[in-house]
């Protein structure tokens, strides 16, 4: 009964954050997440993340069938710890960004995005 593949269970946001942080404390703030308050089309929602001194930023969408969205790892030639992309949101939900700082600490923020037309098939 333990033979199901690990992927059969959608990991929860808390599990994903724990995996990213290794269980370390996560401070609120210190990471910026820009996303529209209202997205008409959930198929393509522009977001930007930034965190001064971050080596990596993970983005999660709490209300999607699978919450992971992307993890940005910044290399030695990154001009800043920031990035923008476009994501899919299945419906109105919280988007979460967790930043890993160079000193090993973690910071987190979230923002609610209202979605008029969901972006998951439909």
């Amino acid at each position: 009964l333990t033979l199901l593949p690990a992927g059969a269970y959608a990991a929860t946001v808390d599990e994903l954050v724990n995996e990213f942080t290794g269980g370390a404390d996560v401070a609120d703030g210190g990471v910026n997440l820009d996303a529209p308050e209202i997205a008409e089309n959930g198929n393509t929602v522009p977001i930007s993340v930034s965190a001064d001194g971050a080596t990596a930023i993970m983005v999660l969408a709490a209300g999607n069938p699978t919450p992971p969205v992307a993890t940005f790892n910044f290399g030695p030639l990154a001009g800043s710890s920031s990035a923008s992309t476009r994501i899919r949101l299945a419906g109105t939900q919280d988007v979460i960004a967790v930043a890993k700082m160079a000193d090993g600490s973690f910071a987190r923020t979230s923002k609610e995005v209202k979605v008029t037309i969901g972006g998951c098939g439909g």
Partner: protein
Amino acid sequence: MAENVKARVRAPRSASAGEVATIKTLISHPMESGQRKDSQGNTIPRSIIHRFTCDFNGENVIDVKMEPAISTNPYFEFEAKIPEAGEFKFTWYDDDGSVYEESATVEVS
């Protein structure tokens, strides 16, 4: 299987040494999420680009782990330090094993 995948990149042609430049990339790809169903109700299998990297003269700028929640035709914008003249190398890794590459040369004046 993704067809007609075309990568587009916007990077400066010239810069001053040490400058921080904004880089924009777009690649045409359906990013099939594995959540959609066809008209018969069968799930359409996942087929996405799962990783994107940008390097300059062999040194890493950004390395992105991508999930099915990234939109069709993945777009990324980020900033890169340009310490000297050289070449940006952009690489996208597809689920089907394909690797798409693009490069951009930067002169330092």
